[in-house]
Structure formats: C-alpha cells, structure tokens
C-alpha cells in the first residue's frame, strides 16, 4: 500500500468516484441511457437551475434554440459568402449536435450552460451585435475545448478523468492562442492583413488568454465537483430507501 502514497497526488485518486461519473453525466446525464440517477434526482433537487438542467426537455429546447441561432448565422454567411464564418460555424454546429445524432434522440444535448458559454461570442454577435473582449472569447474557446474533450471521451477510445480534462482545457486554451498567433502572423505576411500590431499588444492578449484558461479550469473543476456531488447524493438517498 505504500506505493499508493506518492501516487495519489499525481493521479488524483481521491476524486475517482467523481471522475467516473462526471464525464458521462456531462452529456447523457439526462439521456435515456441512465434513467435511475435522472429520476432519483428530479424529486430531490429544488434548485431552479438544477431543475432546468435535470429536465431533459427543457435543456434540449434551450440547446436547440442556440443551434437555431447557429443555423441563422450560417445562412447569413452563406448569403454574404463569408467563407471563414461558414466553415467555423458549420464545424461548431457539427460538434454541438454530435451527441443527439449519435443517440438518435434530440433530447440528448449538451448541458445548456456549457453550450451557452462556448457559443457566447457567436450568440452575442448574432443577437446583440457586439464583440466580446479577449478574456470572454477565450473563456468560450475553453468551454468549446471542454465539449470536444468530453465528446472524444464518449465517442473514441480516449479516456480521461475529471482532473485530466481540466488540465487539457487549460493547456488547449493557451495553445489555441499560440496557434492563432502563428496563423495571423503568416497571414499578415502573405495576405497583407493587419492582425498583429506590436509585441506588447500580443503579450497583453496572451496574458488575458492565460487568465481565461486558468479561470476556465477553476470554473469547470467546480462545475464537475458540483455535478458529481449532486448525483452521488441522489443515488445515496435512493440506496438508503
């Protein structure tokens, strides 16, 4: 057993029961595959937010409303032949509807709060007509990275745990800023665009990106824990009964 000592802080063994349930409940918590915790939870939780989420139909309606906005943006970019937006929105929409398509059930959708955060820049632009700041944009990218991670976990042979998913999201957010910088720099040189200005401006952008990545990591960690605890409590009551 002494080998377990140094292992715990590396693999986060104390969070194992949570991490086992978390990535799954992430998407299909209100799906048809896991009816027991879903039903048990419904009566227990008074929290209005939780109720909204627990009800598979309400969550699906909100999520599909967001997809409708995506479709609207896509059609608009199609009419204006804005190729970049077209590709971007189509790819995002594809990722968003994957769970519903895979389960052949429109009620199996991502949790609306995660989806809302990931689509925030697009929603704000389409509905309110403004631009988000760097911090909020990269927070959205972090949420999208989380969605991708969870879907890869569900639909491929990739298996992650709660802490690994959080780490991956933080790193991916920062890496995406670096990759986008390289793309912009080369576009400035080859295509004559003017994305990048000075090194200082870029560093300040990266600083916000790093903060957004870390903030997203803390946020998602709390979110995972919260959901895991809620689910365990609900199961616990059913078992006692």
């Amino acid at each position, binding site marked *: 057993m002494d080998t377990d000592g*140094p292992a715990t802080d590396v693999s986060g063994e104390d969070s194992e029961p949570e991490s086992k349930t978390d990535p799954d409940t992430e998407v299909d918590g209100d799906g048809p595959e896991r009816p027991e915790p879903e039903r048990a939870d419904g009566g227990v939780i008074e929290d209005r937010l939780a109720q909204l989420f627990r009800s598979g139909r309400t969550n699906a309606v909100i999520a599909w409303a967001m997809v409708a906005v995506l479709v609207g943006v896509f059609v608009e970019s199609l009419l204006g032949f804005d190729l970049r937006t077209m590709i971007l929105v189509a790819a995002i929409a594809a990722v968003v509807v994957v769970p519903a398509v895979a389960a052949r059930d429109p009620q199996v959708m991502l949790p609306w709060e995660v989806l809302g955060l990931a689509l925030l820049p697009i929603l704000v632009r389409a509905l309110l007509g403004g631009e988000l700041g760097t911090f909020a944009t990269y927070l959205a990218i972090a949420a999208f990275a989380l969605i991708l991670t969870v879907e890869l976990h569900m639909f491929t042979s990739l*298996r992650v*745990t709660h802490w690994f998913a959080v780490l991956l999201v933080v*790193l991916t957010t920062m890496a995406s800023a*670096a990759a986008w910088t390289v793309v912009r720099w080369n576009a400035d040189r080859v295509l004559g665009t003017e994305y*990048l*200005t000075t*090194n*200082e401006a870029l560093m300040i952008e990266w600083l916000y990106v*790093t903060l957004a990545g870390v903030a997203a990591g803390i946020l998602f960690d709390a979110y995972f824990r919260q959901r895991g605890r809620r689910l365990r409590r609900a199961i616990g009551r059913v078992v006692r009964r």
Partner: protein
Amino acid sequence: MNVRTALRTRPSLQTQRRLTRAMQILLVGIVLYGFVYGQPKAITNGGLGLFVTFVPAMVERNYDIPLDPWLGVWITSAVFLHTLGSAWFYAQIEWWDHLTHALSASLIAGAGYTTLRAIDLHSDEIDIPSRFAFVFIFVVVLSFGVVWELFEFGLDIVSDETGISMPLAQFGLDDTVLDLMYNSVGALIVATFGQAHLTGLAERVRDGLLGTTEE
C-alpha cells in the same frame, strides 16, 4: 531510417559521460569568462546551464530512474547550445536562436510526452491512444511557449523598471512568433520520431516515481 539505426545503437555510458564532461568544462569556461570580463549574462546563463547538466545524474541517483544515455546528452546539449548562444552566437548567427528554440522545445515535448505516457500507464481510467498523443505534444509545446514568452516579457518589464540586466529578453513581435514556430518544429520532430523511443522511459518513470500499481 539512418537516424533510427543511429539512435538504436546506444552510446556506452562512458561515451555519454565524456560528452557531458566536455560540455560541462566549456560551461565552466563561460562562467569564468563572465567573471573575468564582467559579463553578468554569461555568469547567470552559464551557471544555470551547468546546474541543469547535473540534473540527469541527480534524477538517476535520487529517483532510481535509469536514463537513456542519449537523453542525458540531449538535455545537456540543449542547455549547452543556449548558453553558447547567449554568450556569443545569438547576436552573430541569425539561426542560432531558432536552433536552440527547436531543441529546447523538443525537450519540453519529450517531457510532456513522457509524463502523458506515464499517466496513461499508471491510471486505469485514463487511456490516451497514440494519435491523441501527437496532438497532445503540440498542445503542451504551444502552451509552454505562451508561458515562456510571457515570462520573458515579465523579465523585460522588471529590467526596464529596475535597470537590472536580465539573462533573457524579447526582441519584438517577429522574434516572438518565430520562436513559437521553431518550437513547433521541435514538437513535430518529437511527435514523429519520439513516440517509439520514449515509451521505455515512460515505463521507467512510472516504476521509479509513481510506483507500480501492483502490490
């Protein structure tokens, strides 16, 4: 194929020690040069470099992880080339900076990949297929690049405020982005060739650091 055969024929421990020793002597020379001619940059960089060259031996002794001789040479030469660069070549040879960035990024990539494999082997719940490892190496190297450049930026601000000359500095937008791009080259090399060679190391790291999962 040539590179692979060359890598597979392990250098003897003695050869590795000789190579490391020669580089350490040169690093001591750089530090001494710094003291004699009053170059604080040469002292800090040379001293740090010298310290890092002892890390592989320390890891072997303290954690009982037998390191591949090539790995020792790899780590030592990355530090060595950087120290040489900051002493002379960065200012004179334009591509020296790119070379050291690719080499140090390859080290970060190797460390990232080894950690990933060790976690993959150690944890039953985490399973990372090799095609994801390729992406993961890039993610680690790119995000580390962001942290590194921010660190340099911070040092620049501190040295502007206090007037103390720092061992590292940024040289503008183009330099920052080129750093990132050459970091990616290092990551690409490790992601392409490294996976086969680093797998054994990951197993030893798991055994030495994390302990085996068996009783």
